[in-house]
Structures are given as structure tokens and as C-alpha cells.
């Protein structure tokens, strides 16, 4: 079963490190978005099962993307990956329907564990 | 953690677990703790063993546990965290150890437990050095400030000295005036001599006329005598000679004063040459004697008529100032002695002794300071001795002063033979070497 994953981050470095951290045994198609607006456009036109979402982005930020998704009838799983992980921020993100909140720099094992918990592995 | 090398480090190491209990102390720590505490410190709460500054320590240790990042404390803000004695020698002033502290996170790789490792550095020496440096800098600053003040004072003194120099040129002006006085003095003296002769002739003519009338026309003698009486010829005869003599004496005195004034002041400034010290001393006493009537003056010079190679204007100025001070110090009758003597080494010793009021011990220290004066405001510039001092210095000489209040003052000036003098002596007048 092929999995389509959207990696939304304005930083190329972060997108690289997220993609590199994905378990190699997973068969996945990766779509990249460099800001929230691009992410929303991608989501409306493609069948995406999983979103790996950054919070601080230009145009529309991660919270904006989550708000958009919460208004949709059905939405993919969202794992937020952010450098700003103060409790306040985590609370907002989780209340908008994100499944997990992971810290930057992304830990490979932590991502694998999360994917396992969410049933992708 | 029980590596014996850790006990050799000049750094204190204390390991604390997450319950703030001490789990390790190296020798640096143990050696500085009291015997009672040392035995069972391990395993005890940090607060029990080191109650001083525990609040601060706990705060810092917490930050290390939470942030997983070292924490620093610098002696300048917190010099004595642990109650340790300084390791400085007994002579050191600092008794408490000045410390820098670093707390670093430590994770035991086997058990996975977290620790905070307190590292203590003894920086007593550096701190006291630093403080000494800071104090030194402060002192230097103060000294610098004092010097700047002094320089300002000296600047002022210099301009005052320039002023004094100007006054010396006023002396030259006086010499010019003296010269001008000399001219009329010349013809007044000559005329007076002539007038004396004329008057003598006239009186003789009167006597001769009286004799002629008595022998050839005795009938008119009475009328002539009446005429002589009416014009006081007899009185004129009596009075004229002493009057003229008195005038001549007066003129002589004027001419003496004028010539002294000239010879003393006419010397151009800053010229080196031979000065007859004996003559100079006599002239000086004469000049000062006209201003100060009370003291008796006495001049001695050995050898007689001693000539000295010097910058005569400034040396004369120096001697004048010293003599004036001596004369001024005498209230009633007293003695001012000016004694000049060539020493065995060829130099000259000039002694000025007075039996005047003397100088108090406190003032004696300050007499060479420019503008220091004990005379009332407006009466003295306070420059006399400092001018004398710098003049003597110019001659590479020494000026010493001794005084006892109420008894008098002795000033001794010693002038060395200057090279030029030796050169000139040997070239022009080798015989004077035996002097």
C-alpha cells in the first residue's frame, strides 16, 4: 500500500531532514510544500494520507493549515513538527486536531515510534 | 568517579544527584571541610553539608538539570560560595577563598542517572591581583590628577617668574634713569665747585674792600660796615663754607647711590663671566643698608677680591633676595652677616647669617615653594627664595637653609667650579689655580 505524505516546511533543510527521517521500509510518495498556502492547495487536489507540518511558515502558517483542515469534512492525519514547543503552543495545536506534536530537531526514532502508534508501520 | 587523579586536580569537584544529595567529593573539597563534616558528607543532602548559599546553589543546580546546560558563577558577583579558607600563604590578606564556580550536567552512561557536577576554582590570587590592579589604576588616576594640578600650578609659577623677570628689567630701567641723573649731577657738581670758588672770591673781595676803605677813606668806613651788616656779610662768611660742604656731601652721596645702582643693574642678562664677589657683596650691603636701617651688616670675603665665573645677573639676584630676607627678619637691632669663602675643593661657600626672627619648622619645609610667604598680603610675592633657588640651580649649586624660631637663620650656598671656569682658568690665567 503506497502512502502519500505532504511535508510542509519553508525550510529546505527541515524538509530534507524530515524526509531523511522517514523509515525506509515505508513505501511512500512525498509531496513538498514551502508554505501554508501551497500546502492547502496540495491538500485540496491530492489524496494525502499524512501531513508532516511545520508551524512557522510564511503566507499561511501551520496553525492556519490546521484551521483549514478542521473545517473540512474529512482530513488526513497531521503530525506537527516545530521548534516552538512551549506548552501553550502544543495545547493550541492539539485542540485543532493534530495527532502528535514532535520537536525540532526531529528524532528519527521518535518519528518511527509515532508512525507505529498511528498505524502506518 | 573514584579516579585518584581527580584528587590531584587543583579544582574542587562535587557531584550532586537529582535529589540534591552529595554523591562525590574530590580531595580539594574534602581537605577544606571540617573534620566532623568530612567523614559522613557523602550521601547527605547538599543543604546539610553546605547550608551557606544553599538557595543560590539549588537554583543553579535546578537550572542545570532543567536546561542540561552549564551554569557559571563569577567571583566578582559572588566571591565566597563555599566556606573555604584561602590557599594563599599565611602572609596573604585574604582569609576566605575567592571562587569561580561552574556547574555542568553529567549523565552516568551506565545507569542513565543525571547529576550536576559542581566545579570550584580557587581564584583568590587572581582576584586579589585584579583588585590590586584596580586599586593601582585608581591610584594612578589620582596621581595623574595631582600631577596635572601641579603642572597647572607650575604653569602659573612660570608666568609669575616671567613677571619677576620683567621686574628685573625694571631694574635695568632704574639703571637707565641713574645714567640720566648722572648727567645733571656732573654739571651740578662742577658748578657747585665753581660757585664755591666764586663765593670765596667775592668774600675775599669784601675783606679787601673793607681794608682799602679803612686806610684810604676812613670817613666812609662806617657807611660800608652798615652796608655789610645790612647784607649779613659776616653771617654769609660763616655759613657759606659748611653749606657748600653739606651740598657737596649730598651730591657725593647721590652719585654713590647712582653708581651702585648702575653697577648692580647694568649687567646684561644671561651673560657668563667673572664677577668680583667681594665688590658685589659690599655693593649689596650698601644698597640694602639704605632700605633697612636697623640691622648692622658685616661682609667678609676670603680670599680678598674673589672673582667667580658665573651668570652674574642671576647670582646677584639670588644674593639680593637672600640678603633682603635676612634684613627683613630683623626687628630691632641685629646682625646680618655675608660670608664668602673659597673651599678647599675650589668651590665657593656663601653663608648668610642673620640674628632675626627665624622660621618655624612648619614653614621651613615650604620656603622654596613659589608664592609661599609669611608676609602680609601685598607685602611679599613669595618668590624670593624660589627665584634664588633656581638661580643657584642654574649654577649647579646647592642651597641649604637652617633656622630656629626667635634665634635666626643660616643660609648656605655652595657653588661648584664650573667646567668653563676651569677651562678658561687654565687657558688664560694658570697662576690662579693655586688659589
Amino acid at each position, binding site marked *: 500500500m503506497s502512502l502519500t505524505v505532504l511535508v510542509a516546511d519553508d525550510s529546505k533543510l*527541515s524538509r530534507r531532514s524530515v524526509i531523511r527521517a522517514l523509515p525506509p521500509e515505508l513505501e511512500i510518495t512525498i509531496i513538498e510544500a514551502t508554505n501554508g498556502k501551497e500546502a492547502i492547495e496540495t491538500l485540496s487536489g491530492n489524496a494525502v494520507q499524512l501531513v508532516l507540518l511545520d508551524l512557522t511558515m510564511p503566507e499561511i502558517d501551520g496553525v492556519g493549515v490546521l484551521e483549514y483542515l478542521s473545517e473540512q469534512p474529512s482530513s488526513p492525519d497531521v503530525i506537527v513538527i516545530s*521548534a*516552538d514547543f512551549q506548552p501553550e503552543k502544543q495545547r493550541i495545536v492539539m485542540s485543532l486536531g493534530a495527532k502528535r506534536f514532535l520537536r525540532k530537531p526531529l528524532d528519527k526514532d521518535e518519528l518511527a515510534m509515532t508512525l507505529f502508534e498511528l498505524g502506518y508501520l | 568517579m573514584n579516579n585518584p587523579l581527580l584528587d590531584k586536580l587543583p579544582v574542587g569537584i562535587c557531584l550532586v544527584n537529582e535529589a540534591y544529595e552529595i554523591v562525590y567529593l574530590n580531595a580539594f573539597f574534602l581537605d577544606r571541610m571540617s573534620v566532623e563534616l568530612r567523614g559522613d558528607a557523602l550521601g547527605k543532602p547538599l543543604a546539610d553539608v553546605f547550608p551557606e548559599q544553599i538557595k543560590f546553589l539549588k537554583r543553579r543546580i535546578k537550572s542545570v538539570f532543567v*536546561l*542540561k546546560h552549564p551554569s557559571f*558563577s563569577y567571583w566578582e558577583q559572588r566571591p565566597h560560595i563555599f566556606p573555604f579558607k584561602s590557599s594563599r600563604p599565611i602572609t596573604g590578606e585574604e582569609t576566605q577563598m575567592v571562587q*569561580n564556580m561552574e556547574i555542568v550536567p553529567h549523565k552516568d552512561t551506565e545507569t542513565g542517572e543525571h547529576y550536576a557536577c559542581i566545579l570550584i576554582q580557587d581564584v583568590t590570587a587572581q582576584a586579589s591581583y585584579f583588585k590590586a590592579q584596580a586599586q593601582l589604576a585608581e591610584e594612578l588616576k589620582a596621581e595623574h590628577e595631582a600631577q596635572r594640578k601641579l603642572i597647572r600650578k607650575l604653569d602659573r609659577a612660570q608666568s609669575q617668574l616671567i613677571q619677576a623677570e620683567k621686574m628685573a628689567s625694571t631694574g635695568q630701567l632704574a639703571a637707565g634713569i641713574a645714567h640720566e641723573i648722572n648727567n645733571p649731577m656732573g654739571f651740578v657738581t662742577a658748578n657747585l665747585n665753581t660757585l664755591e670758588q666764586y663765593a670765596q672770591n667775592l668774600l675775599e673781595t669784601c675783606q679787601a674792600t673793607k681794608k682799602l676803605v679803612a686806610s684810604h677813606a676812613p670817613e666812609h668806613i662806617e657807611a660800608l660796615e652798615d652796608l655789610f651788616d645790612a647784607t649779613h656779610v659776616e653771617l654769609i662768611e660763616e655759613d657759606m663754607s659748611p653749606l657748600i660742604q653739606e651740598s657737596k656731601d649730598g651730591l657725593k652721596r647721590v652719585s654713590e647711590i647712582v653708581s651702585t645702582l648702575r653697577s648692580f643693574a647694568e649687567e646684561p642678562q644671561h651673560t657668563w663671566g667673572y664677577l668680583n664677589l667681594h665688590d658685589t657683596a659690599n655693593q649689596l650691603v650698601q644698597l640694602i643698608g639704605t632700605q633697612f636701617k636697623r640691622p648692622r651688616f658685616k661682609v667678609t670675603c676670603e680670599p680678598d677680591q674673589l672673582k667667580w665665573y658665573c651668570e652674574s645677573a642671576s647670582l646677584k639676584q639670588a644674593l639680593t633676595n637672600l640678603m633682603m630676607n635676612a634684613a627683613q627678619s630683623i626687628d630691632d637691632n641685629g646682625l646680618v652677616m655675608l660670608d664668602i669663602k673659597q673651599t678647599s675643593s675650589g668651590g665657593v661657600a656663601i653663608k648668610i647669617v642673620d640674628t632675626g626672627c627665624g622660621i618655624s619648622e612648619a614653614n621651613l619645609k615650604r620656603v622654596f615653594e613659589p608664592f609661599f610667604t609669611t608676609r602680609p598680603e601685598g607685602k611679599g610675592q613669595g618668590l624670593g627664595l624660589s627665584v634664588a633657588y633656581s638661580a643657584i640651580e642654574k649654577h649647579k649649586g646647592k642651597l641649604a637653609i637652617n633656622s630656629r624660631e626667635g634665634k635666626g637663620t643660616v643660609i648656605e650656598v655652595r657653588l661648584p667650579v664650573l667646567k668653563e671656569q676651569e677651562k678658561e682658568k687654565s687657558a688664560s690665567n694658570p697662576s690662579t689655580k693655586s688659589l
Partner: protein
Amino acid sequence: MNDTIALSEDQRDALQELMNISMGQAANSLAHLIETKIGISIPKITAVTPDGLFELVSHHQQAYYTRQSFMGDIHGEVMSILTQHGLTEVAELLDYEQPLSENDINETILELSNILAGACLAGLSEQLELATNLQMPTLFAPQKSDFSQYDWQHSLVMEVKFDIQISSFTMRVVFCLDDASLTRLKSTIDELLG
């Protein structure tokens, strides 16, 4: 700008992200310690000459300055500029008792710079897998002469602003790297981007 200092768009972006992550860690650590929310600005990355650096840091009249050097795989200095305003409240959050003595204030300044600058450096080093050690921070007053005496011609300035929300306190952290360290940093970033 010479060649060693010029950053490609990708490199600049990557560095910005790395800083962002490091700052996030720093802010989170401090927020955790003093139990308050901390705002972080998006890091600004510029390359400046020493004179430019002086201009950059010296504008702040009412400010405290600290500097802290680091060594290891990369060398450089971190400068922290702290506003005087709001510092009292932060000191209180750090458990200092009022009224603050001059030593308390100095200690607070040094501690804050150490936590924030230190966390930034730690985050950066960790992500780039570079070993660095931070030295003790010291207080200093920036003077133009200090800057012209630096033996590097250019420095990379990574500037970020922290806002501690219950007070109006802000702090800027400026990283200065020498040319050799910058070259090392760039090659490490290139590996990550590759």
C-alpha cells in the same frame, strides 16, 4: 564581502532554520525554568564587517552587554544585548529577592545570557554534530576600538530577539563566527542539504 562569507540562498535558509530550532530550544528551556511564555523572533542572518557589527550592537542606549566565547569545532563569540527595562521582573522570576543589589543584577544578566546564548549554541552544535564548549560569560561595554581589533574581517551575525511576555524584557543574541569556522559551518550545512 569576500567569498568565504557569501552564503547561498539555501545555506542562508538552512542556517536560519537551524537557528530557529536552537532558539526554540533555548526559549523552551527558559520558559520551563521560569514558568512563563517566551516569544522568539524569526532569526535574522547577516554578514557584517566589524564596524557594521559595532553599529548593530551599539544602538541600544539603555542596554547591558555580555560576551561569551566558544571553542571546539567552530570558534566565535556570542554577544547578548539585554534591555535594562523589565530586567527586575525577570530577576524576580529567577528567584532573586527584592530589592536587587548591583551584584544581583549583574548575576541575572550573566545567567540569562548564559542560558539563552548557551542553549542556542548547544542546539546549533547538536544539529550540526559539532563539538563546542562555551566559556564563562563576562560583562562588557562595547567600544568601537574593541571591534576594529578583531582579527577577522567579516563576521556572520545571527540575530534573534527573545521577548519575555510578563515583562517587557527583550534580549538579542548575536553570533559572530570567524572565517575558518564559517567555512566549516558551510560545508556541514551542505552535507545536510545534499
